[in-house]
């Protein structure tokens, strides 16, 4: 079916997945075409639109950037703050194994921008700032093009500023974005949080791009439609970036609570070829092959394994990779990703990285695993941001899931010919300004 044939006066609500990234979205969708399908954006008035906040709440929408905070609640808090609020669209996506936000911005920028306008209406904001990784050229170009089309066709909408932000892992953290927008380094800060005092000292709603795309569809088709997939406590759909030992890596949209085994099957994982699965990114949790056979992609189920969905990252580790080597690589990368502000993070992660590296090379003392666990406990909760906490969780989970491999390495084994699976961008390639 061609794009033209699908065009109707009032598009019906999609009755199945995908909702966010439809097959026609593989092509550039003009604003006129997008409007026919997605409907008009609501007017922005003087007051917050309680009905929009209420719809987000009834839909049960939660943030898709990793924190899973209830979106309606956040909008309510920002709208209640003093002064004219700001909407900050977070498309920084610093998680190395995540690509869903960049894909969404590249394929369906108008859906995200609609969501931003709707969020602005909801909280009474007169300014929207879209933050995108400054090395994500495709996403930046796509948003720029959509914005110029919108500026010509919809002059009444809230003005949108697009900015390319530093690529560091912690730069996408909301306080880091606010600090950078105020002329500082893109490094996290201690409270106040942006919802209290953000850009220009004003209450700032920071929402992930996927969250806003869902919001646009909820306002268009209603909370009941949104809840028609997913689970009762975690409704709707979610985007996953699936990679590793799969034949068809990429971004998949699945109902919340989907079976991990089915997701892996859909992505072309071969039975018996996957030794473990990383869920939630580098702040996330490893599931053994056995655990991943029964796991469901919801917070309610992943809590069984001490994990959560994070920003929707799923990496299948192939049998011929080594969990110890991968853990050491990631911890070393996390150590290099520190903003260098908090002593326990800066020095603690460096110690962890050095020790984990020694274990991977078969050069560690026999009690190195105990020391790693002790350090993980020491750094938890000790930073301005969650980097040390994430590293501690990742390391603990690595030690538990790859216990036998760690034991072998602690007895002197090393895996020099091992293939490397988890992606590690070069943290030194960007500045903090």
């Amino acid at each position, binding site marked *: 079916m061609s794009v033209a044939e699908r065009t109707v006066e009032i598009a019906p609500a999609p009755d199945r997945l995908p909702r966010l990234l439809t097959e026609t979205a593989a092509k550039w969708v003009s604003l006129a075409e997008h409007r026919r399908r997605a409907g008009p954006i609501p007017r922005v008035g003087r007051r917050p639109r309680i009905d929009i906040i209420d719809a987000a709440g009834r839909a049960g929408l939660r943030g898709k950037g990793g924190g899973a905070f209830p979106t309606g609640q956040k909008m309510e808090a920002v709208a209640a703050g003093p002064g004219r609020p700001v909407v900050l669209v977070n498309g920084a996506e610093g998680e190395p194994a995540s690509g869903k936000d960049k894909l969404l911005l590249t394929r369906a920028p108008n859906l995200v921008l609609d969501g931003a306008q709707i969020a602005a209406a909801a909280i009474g904001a007169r300014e929207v700032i879209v933050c995108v990784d400054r090395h994500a050229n495709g996403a930046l170009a796509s948003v720029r093009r959509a914005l110029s089309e919108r500026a010509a066709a919809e002059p009444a909408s809230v003005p949108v500023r697009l900015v390319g932000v530093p690529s560091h892992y912690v730069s996408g953290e909301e306080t880091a974005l606010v600090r950078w927008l105020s002329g500082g380094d893109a490094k996290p*800060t*201690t409270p106040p949080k942006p919802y209290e005092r953000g850009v220009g000292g004003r209450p700032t709603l920071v929402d992930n791009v996927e969250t806003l795309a869902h919001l646009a569809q909820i306002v268009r088709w209603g909370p009941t439609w949104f809840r028609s997939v997913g689970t009762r406590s975690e409704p709707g759909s979610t985007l996953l970036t699936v990679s590793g030992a799969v034949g068809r890596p990429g971004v998949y949209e699945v109902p919340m609570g989907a079976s991990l085994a089915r997701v892996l099957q859909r992505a072309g994982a071969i039975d018996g070829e996957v030794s473990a699965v990383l869920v939630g990114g580098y702040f996330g949790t490893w599931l053994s092959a056995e655990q991943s056979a029964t796991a469901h992609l919801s917070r309610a189920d992943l809590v069984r394994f001490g994990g959560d969905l994070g920003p929707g990252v799923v990496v299948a580790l192939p049998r011929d990779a080594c969990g110890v080597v991968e853990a050491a690589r990631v911890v070393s990368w996390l150590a290099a990703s520190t903003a260098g*502000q*908090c*002593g*326990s*993070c800066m*020095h*603690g992660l460096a*110690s962890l990285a050095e020790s984990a590296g020694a274990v991977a090379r078969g050069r560690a003392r026999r009690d190195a695993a105990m020391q790693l666990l002790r*350090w993980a406990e*020491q*750094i938890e909760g*000790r*930073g*301005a941001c969650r980097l040390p906490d994430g590293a501690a969780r990742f390391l603990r989970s690595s030690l538990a899931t790859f216990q036998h491999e760690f034991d072998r390495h602690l007895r002197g084994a090393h895996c020099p010919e091992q293939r490397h699976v988890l992606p590690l961008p070069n943290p030194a390639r960007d500045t903090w300004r």
Partner: protein
Amino acid sequence: MTLRLRVDPIVCDGHGVCAELFPERVSLDDWGYPIVDSDAIGRDLLDHARRAVAACPVLALRLERA
């Protein structure tokens, strides 16, 4: 009013004065940075807490309402 001790991890330089003056609630990690017990500070310890806060060379330590 109950108070608790908080350290700003960005401001803190790991001088360690707080752990020396208020070992009841502050210990140091393996890298010399303070691990601060966030439980409410009772009346009996308030003077010690205030002394530690005042002695921090970079003003990273403060008493906050619990």
